[in-house]
């Protein structure tokens, strides 16, 4: 142990010195860290970004001035949107059409990622708002049926426009196409459009098989039985073996063959061992 003290610091104290050097070191250190970690960030970010088209600031434009900007900037889209949705439900119960409509736009502007905001929003526009408007005009008993239909069609088109907007955020989503088909069928009574939408729904990744069956059913209703048969014949080998739905499809094929008087030699023959259960690769 040395008995001679070591000089601690010779001239000027650290607190008298400018803080500039420390600031330069901190900024430089963070920049260096950022540059190094960009190598880690970039590959994952590219993938995440592609999966989340909702990460666009332009969609928050509609929400500006609604007292939610800070929530959005702070990255709390989900919770702000959820509370907006709860508020929307209060207005929905009060049948306040303009306010419900505003909040429907706001909630998807705040957070366009949850699908149920879009799907439930479209249903509210197409079905509930139609009923509210008819009730406001005097009720189903006093409003002429033609006007009821017109109101229903107007609301249905608005709902479809919402679903089209949703599809820009959620491309290749089966649920949105199913919802569109339902509205086209039940509100617009446009069977051809609904048939096309059910087909699009089935073509999306994970699209439900019932959408494909409904497509055939609607073709049949339109009198396009040959087209419906061809569709089901193409569909059947792709359905899971032993499934109840697979048997139903086969039954429909037989019904259509009977209706179309297809000769036994040309009738559909399921692949040996049953359908492989794979979905078509081209979807």
């Amino acid at each position: 142990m040395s008995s001679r003290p070591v000089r601690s610091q010779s001239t000027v104290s650290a607190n008298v010195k400018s803080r500039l050097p420390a600031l330069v070191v901190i900024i430089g250190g963070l920049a260096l860290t950022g540059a190094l970690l960009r190598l880690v960030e970039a590959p994952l970010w590219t993938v995440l970004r592609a999966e989340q088209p909702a990460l666009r600031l332009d969609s928050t434009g509609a929400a500006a001035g609604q007292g939610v900007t800070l929530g959005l900037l702070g990255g709390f889209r989900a919770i702000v949107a959820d509370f907006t949705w709860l508020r929307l439900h209060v207005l929905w119960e009060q049948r306040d059409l303009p306010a419900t409509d505003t909040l429907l736009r706001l909630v998807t502007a705040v957070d366009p990622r949850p699908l149920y905001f879009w799907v439930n929003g479209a249903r509210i526009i197409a079905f509930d708002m139609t009923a509210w408007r008819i009730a406001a005009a005097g009720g189903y008993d006093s409003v002429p049926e033609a006007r009821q239909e017109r109101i229903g069609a107007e609301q249905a088109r608005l709902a479809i426009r919402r679903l089209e907007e949703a599809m820009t955020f959620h491309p290749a989503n089966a649920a949105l196409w199913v919802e569109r088909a339902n509205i086209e069928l039940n509100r617009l009574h446009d069977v051809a459009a609904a048939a096309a939408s059910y087909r699009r729904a089935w073509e999306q990744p994970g699209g439900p098989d019932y959408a494909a069956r409904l497509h055939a059913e609607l073709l049949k209703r339109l009198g396009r039985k040959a087209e419906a048969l061809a569709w089901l014949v193409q569909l059947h080998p792709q359905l899971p073996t032993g499934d109840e739905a697979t048997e139903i499809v086969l039954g429909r094929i037989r019904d259509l063959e009977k209706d179309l008087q297809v000769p036994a030699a040309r009738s559909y023959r399921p692949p040996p061992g049953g359908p492989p259960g794979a979905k078509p690769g081209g979807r």
Partner: protein
Amino acid sequence: MTRVPFSFTRARLIGQNTLLEASRQKLFSFLLLLALSLVAGAQGFRDFNFGAPELKFLADLGYGAMAFFGAALTVAATAQLFFSEIENRTALTLLAKPVWRAEFILGKYLGIAAVAAVFCVLLTGLLAAVLWAREGSLLTEFPEAFPHGRTLHFADLVAAGYVQWLKLAVLAAFTLLVASFSQTQLYTVVTGFFVLVICHLQYLAQDASARGDSVFARAVAGAIGLLFPNFQLFNLAENVGAGVAVPWDRVAHVSVYALGYVVAAGALAVYSFRKREI
């Protein structure tokens, strides 16, 4: 001369004391209770009857509460627990012991990270219980909506909670870095929240640096993109409530990213604090 090497034991002791101090404070209890009651109360939203998507709504609300109250807790607790040492002069007594300043900063960080971890664990546990119970009743009410039985997986819910904690851990490190040179608690809290906002929008700065109108704008945006972490990278579990699995390779990837920032911000906090006059 007896050498005093850096000691993780001392850092751990300081961390334990910090956690104990936080747990005995009203702020921690208040935010925890608020978040817990929100998640538990979410069961009451069943009147809205979303059907199967209700689970996603509940999960979004739960993780949203975790992100929101967790961020508030992390920034406030970091500033409070750091400045309580300085202003109450307990740092004077502690640093007069054979304690390295790096041990002090590491200890404080460990304590705050533990506070955030306790918060996330409790909320994840409660949320998992709420989701499990609601999924059970939805299964009974709408069996057709669940053709393959239960869709939620506990491991994914835990992974989602872990990713939330990772983000808070990075936020704590940056707030501690600010505290290491800041003179007041208020400045630290305000700056901490600014950091939080900037980190969530960092990706926009990256975009602007690539496609900005002027050279100056590109340079400023590039600097922001370089200096702050991208918090959108922690959005790995957006669809966990819809039964979509959390990809574990991505969780590992983002863990490395978070660790890198925690180490860097922590080291810079030590550098900044080492000459601070107590």
